[in-house]
């Protein structure tokens, strides 16, 4: 049986990678993918803990997946609108809130 720490480690690495993508990439689609990574890192944690401690975590994992799917649908739609409007999906250039 694989000790729980390993799951944690994978999950943390995955989360860190996702976070790094979200923070550093300029491309909105890549940022979206970073978020997916972070969500999945969370999913790993849910499933691992449910298996290990016997709490019903899969249910949350399924929930997250559904949400993520919906989120991607909405986010992509927004990105398309942003692209149509700004002719770019570079987040640094989409900063209308400033001036």
């Amino acid at each position, binding site marked *: 049986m694989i000790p729980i720490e390993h799951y944690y480690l994978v999950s943390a690495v995955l989360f860190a990678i996702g976070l790094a993508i979200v923070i550093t990439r300029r491309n909105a689609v890549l940022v979206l993918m970073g978020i997916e990574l972070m969500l999945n890192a969370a999913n790993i944690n849910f499933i691992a803990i449910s298996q290990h401690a016997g709490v019903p975590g899969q249910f949350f994992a399924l929930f997250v997946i559904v949400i993520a799917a919906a989120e991607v649908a909405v986010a992509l739609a927004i990105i398309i609108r942003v692209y149509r409007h700004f002719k770019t999906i570079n987040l640094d250039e*989409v*900063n209308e809130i400033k001036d």
Partner: protein
Amino acid sequence: MAADLLTPLPCSNITLLALIALMLPLLSFLLNSGAVARYAWQASIAACFFMVLSSLISMIILVHVWNGTTFHTRMTWFVLGETGHTIGLFIDNPGALMIFLVTFISLLVHLYSTQYMKDDPGYQRYFAFLGLFTFSMMGILLADNLLVIFVFWELVGFSSYLLIGHWYHQAPAARAAKKAFIVNRIGDVGFILGIAVLWAQFRTLDLETLKEAMSSSSIQGESWVTSAGIALDTRWLTFMGLGIFMGAVGKSAQFPLQVWLPDAMEGPTPVSALIHAATMVAAGVFLMCRVVVLLDMDALSVIAVTGGLTAFMGAIAALTQHDIKKVLAYSTISQLGYMLMGVGIGAPGAALFHLFTHAFFKAALFLAAGSVIYALHQYAHRHQLAFDAQDMRNMGGLRAKLPVTFIVYLVATLALVGVPMFSGFLSKDALLSASFGWSEAMASEGHRWTYIVPVFAFTTVVLTAIYMGRQVLLVFFGELRIKGPADGLKESSHMIKFVLVVLGLFSLGIVWSLDPFDYHASWFLTLMPIPASSVPGLEVFVLDTARANALDSHTVVGLISIVLVLLGFGFSWFKYRPRASYALGYQGRAGFSFLEQLSFKNWYLDPLYRRLIVNPLMSFSRAASRTEKAIIDKFIDVTGVGSVIFAHIVGWFDRAFVDGFVNFSVFFAGKVGVLAKSFQYGKIQNYIILAVLSTILIILLIL
């Protein structure tokens, strides 16, 4: 107190007559001021007629009071609080004699003026004012109440103002009129204050009541207490006497207020005769005789000394005048001094006696002088000569040209100087003896300084003889000094001569006393009641001793005065006789020695007053107007301007601070907003970093 005495007293026939005699001159005033100019002559004749009536009535009144009865009518004039002010007529012997004197001389002056003033453009005005004057003068004599006396007193001053200023277009006349009134006013203020003391003390101004109230008051220690218990410091008793005396000082031209009378000679000569010699100026003497019973010893002594001093000063000033009327004016001052001295030394009867004799001979002198002036005027007019008809330097030798005038002038001069057989001798002798007797009595009480009064009085006798001798010699003797044709200088009309002769007759001693050497034989003095003085604290016995002394010494005094008169005449003959150097060089006389200047300028009183009173007063007045402009108004303006400036400051404060605060809050909120906004710069990833870091921070904190 004494309220029962203030009940109205019914009218008697005599007081009714007196009222008519009083009203006639007023009627004359109204008639003459209201008449159409065309009827001016008729109105003036009517005025003369009124005066005839008035003097006839006075004569009837005189007959009725001759035996010593008095008549008093009184009614309430107005009521104040619980006290009534009364107005009424009071007639006793002195009063009746005085109204006769005034109406009679006024009549003569009216008659004289119809000729003297006939070519004057102000003829009608002149007669109106004569009427007004006579009315006011009669009012003083008949009134029973000090307030009413004061009313007429001021009216007399007013009519005198109008008459002195008759030729108002001449600047000196205008100035003289103003001066006369103002100087009189100074005296009148004293009079008012005297009245005020009596009022404060007795609550009445009725003279008869005052006399009773005065005798029922007493001196208790330092205070003067009435029977009603009202107390004043005794100084106010003296103050009251001196106050009323000040009124007399003004009106009767006594030192120090005598300066107006010489200037008043700018008025027409008949006016000078009537007002400024015979009657008005004598009003002061009459008033003092009326109130003498209210005066205390200190006041009386001041009056005596003032009178003596004025007699002396006036006589000195008369010595060197060139104006024929000015000599007479100063002489009048001097003689009035005699009269007031008489009042002060407790011989009011003698004072009144002198007032009477003086009124006639001085009126004669003035009117004769007027006749001289008139004649010279006519002469100048006829020959187209230009010279001052009043200046004695232009006269001389008029004896032959104006015989009637000369004789009357001579008679009146002898009366004035006090030569036996003439009226002045009697009255002056009475005064001189009284002054001698008084100072003896006072000296026996330890007041040796009182000898100054007879010394003044006797010196004045010599001086009078000198200046009158000088005047007669310079005017009537020698040669006419003005160069001109010999013809055309002649006596004036019969009316003028008639008036002069009548007045001349009254200057003879025989009219006044059958024994021309003894004034005690005079009918006049027997009519004069000896005043029973009732002032508390007055040493009546001194005055009684004085009277007794006077009786004893009058023969000696008479002799001395005759010697003094001869001395004076001798001196003036020696100095001013026609061929003497003075008379020869008189026409072009210029240079004066200091003493002569002192006399000529009337002791330099005018410049003195100008420097001591008028100039300081004017600088006070200018200072007041500067205070007004520079301080009070400046303060107001500065306050006004200051408040505008303050308003600007407030406005600035409003903009800078109140508005500034509001603006600052807005500005601050804005800055805060900008600061807050600076976090929202649109880098979505930075937000995420912040969010993550914050989350980590929170987790760390929780853990």
